[in-house]
C-alpha cells in the first residue's frame, strides 16, 4: 500500500531531486538546509499537497514547521486529513 509518506517522498525526488534516487534523503532531513527547495519550490509543494490530498492550505500552514522535511509534510497532511474527517 502506498502511504502518504511514499507519495510525498516520490514527489520530492521527482520534482526537486529530478529522479536522482542515489540522493540519500532522510525522512527528517531539512529541505531548506539541504538546498532541496527554494522559495519557488514552496509554491510547488503547496500545490502538490492541495491537488493530491484535497487540503486547502491557509497562510499560517505554509511554514517550515509543517513542510521542511518528508516527516513534517506527512504528519501535516495526516493531521489535516483527520481534521477534515472529524
Amino acid at each position: 500500500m502506498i502511504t502518504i509518506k511514499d507519495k510525498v517522498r516520490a514527489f520530492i525526488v521527482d520534482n526537486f531531486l529530478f529522479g536522482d534516487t542515489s540522493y540519500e534523503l532522510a525522512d527528517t532531513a531539512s529541505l531548506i538546509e539541504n538546498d532541496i527547495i527554494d522559495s519557488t519550490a514552496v509554491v510547488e509543494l503547496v500545490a502538490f499537497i492541495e491537488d493530491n490530498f484535497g487540503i486547502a492550505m491557509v497562510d499560517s500552514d505554509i511554514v517550515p514547521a509543517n513542510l521542511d522535511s518528508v516527516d513534517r509534510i506527512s504528519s501535516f497532511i495526516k493531521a489535516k486529513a483527520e481534521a477534515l474527517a472529524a
Partner: protein
Amino acid sequence: MCGFGGYFGSIRDAEALLARMIAAIAHRGPDEQGKFVAPDAGLGHARLSVIGIGDGQQPMSDVSGNLTIAFNGEIFNYLELREGLMAKGRRFRTSSDTEVILHLYDEMGEDCLPLLNGDFAFAIWDNRRRRMVLARDRMGVRPLFYTNKDGVLYFASEIKALLKVPGISAEIDPIALDQIFTLWAPIAPRTAFRNIYELEPASVMIATQEEVTVKRYWHLDYPHRDAPPKLTNEDDAAEELQALLSDAVRLRMRADVPVGSYLSGGLDSSLVSALAAGMTPLQLQTFSVTFDSTEHDESAFQTEMASALGARHRTIACQAGDIAGVFPEVIRFAERPIIRTAPAPLYQLSGLVRQAGLKVVLTGEGADEVFAGYDIFREARVRRFCGRQPASRMRPKLFRRLYPYLPGLQQQSVEYLSAFFGAGNAALDDPLFSHRPRFKTTAAAKIFFSGDLRATLKGYDAAEDLVSRLPQAFSLWHPLHQAQFLETSFLLPGYILSSQGDRMAMAHGIEGRFPFLDPRLVEFAGRLPPEMKLKGLVEKHILRKAAKHLLPSAIRERTKQPYRAPEARSFVGAGELDYVRDALSEASIAAGGLFNAKAVANLHEKCRTQPASGFRDNAAFVGILSTQLWQKNFTGQEVSAARAA
C-alpha cells in the same frame, strides 16, 4: 580596441601561426591586421581603429627597433602622459596612445603601469632584455590569456586564438566548472579550459628564457574598519565624486570616432549618459535593450532619460526566442559555461551599436560594485540585523523590501523568509558572510553533476578555495567593504566585464568604456565610509546625491532594478530550437559525461511544463545547456548524438 596574440620561444612557421591566431579573433579588430616576427618572439594584431586612425598601426616598434608592442584597449590619459614625455624631450612619430606606452616603458619598464589610466592588455617584446612583458589593466576590462606548450609561452586576447596553436586543444577544467556552478565564474587565473590561464587584472607577467614571473602592480584596498573616516561631510564627498566622475567621462569621450552610450534606464548609465551629453558637440547616441516581459523591461525609464537628454535613442527588443537564437554564439564568444542568460541581450545590443555605425560606447557598469548598488549588499545588512535577534518575527519582513520584483518572495511567510535567508547568519565573522546564501543556492545546481564528475572533484569546495585567496587585510575591513571586495575583485572581472562585457561587445567589434572604473574613482569610493554608500537600505546613496542636478528625480530616486533576462523559459516550449533538444538529450548528456542524463531530462521536462522555475532550476538549465554548447564548440563533441542514436 583590438585583439592580439603572440608567443615567446622558438617555433616553426611563425607567420602562418600568427595569421591563424589573428584570424580567430578578427572580430575584435576588423579594421587592420599586422604581424611582427623576431627570433624567438612574435606578435600579431587585429585593429579596431579608434585613436590615431591613420598612424596607429600595430604591432608598433620604437625608433630603435628594440621595443615592439601589441596593444588592446585605450589609455585614456595618454594626452597628459604624452605631454609629460615630450617635456622630457621624447619625440613622437604618431598621434596614438600605443606609442605613449612604448615611450613610458622605455623610460620606466613595468613601473610605468600605475601611471596608466585606461582599459588595456598589451604585450611588449623587449629585445634588449630578451623578455616578453604582458600586462593587464587594474579592473580586468581587457582580457589576456596564456598557455605553455613545449617551452613556448603563447598568449592572446581570446582563448580561441590559442586553440590555433598546434598541440593545444580544448578540454573542460572540472574545477572551473565547479567554480562556475558555485561562484558564477572561474577563479582567475583558472579558465574553463584546462591548462589555459588568464593573466589576472592589475598584473604584469615578465617572461625570460630563465623564468616567468607574475606580480600585481595595484591592489584594491579599503581602510581598517575602526579607522576614523577621512571623508565625513557628505556634501563635500558628493561634490568630489561628481568632479571625479565628470573627468572620468571626459577622458573616456576621447576618440577619433563618435562615442555613444548604453542606457539601461537606471541611475548609473543615466548619469554617465547625462555627463557625456553635456560634453559632446554632437547629439549623443544612446542604445537600450527592451524586453517583452514587464519584470525585465525598463523601457519607460530609458525613454524618459533619452528624451531628457535630447539623445538619438535606438532600442533593440529582446523577444521570446531571441535569447535562444543567439545563445550558441554567446557561448562561442564568452568561451565558458554560464549560469545566466544576461549576456545574450548584451550581445544583441552591441550588434545594434555596430549597425548604427558606432565603435565605442560608454556604460554604467562598475557603479554597483564601487558604490554598493547590488541587492546582495542590502541583503547582507538585513541578514546581520536578523542574525542579532534570531527570534524576531519583524526583522525577516525586511527581506520582502529587498526584492519587490520577486513576487514569489513577497508571498512567503516570515518563517520561510527567515529560513531562506538564514544561511550562515550565525557566523557573522565568516569572510563570505555576504555571499554565502548566493553561493549555496547556486551550488544546489550541482545536483545534476554526474557521478564521474563528482568523483573527479573529490569533494572540492569552490567557496573555501575563494576564501583561501583573500588578502590578509580582508578581515580588518568593514563587512560592506568585504562584500564589495568580493564583487569588485572577483565577480566584476570574472563575469560582468568578461562574459557580459568585453566578450559580448567585441563579438561585434564594439569597445565598451567604463567611467565608474576610472582608478581615481575606484580609490575614492574605497575610502568613503560605508554609510555613505549604503545608507540604511538605500543603495548608492552618495551617487544619488552627486546626481541631484543631473538627472530627473524619477531616475535618481528609483530603487535599483537588477539587470536580468528571461532564463530557462527562453529555450523551452513552442518553437524550441533543435539545438536545445539535441544538447539536452539523454544521449548527448551521457556523451558529455559531466551531468546525470536522466536528471537533466527531468529538468528539461519540468522547465517545459512549469515555466515559473526557481533560481536553482534556472541556473542549472542555463549552466548545463551552456556547458554542452561549450563542449560542442570548443572540443568538437557532437551534441546531436541523440539524432544518430
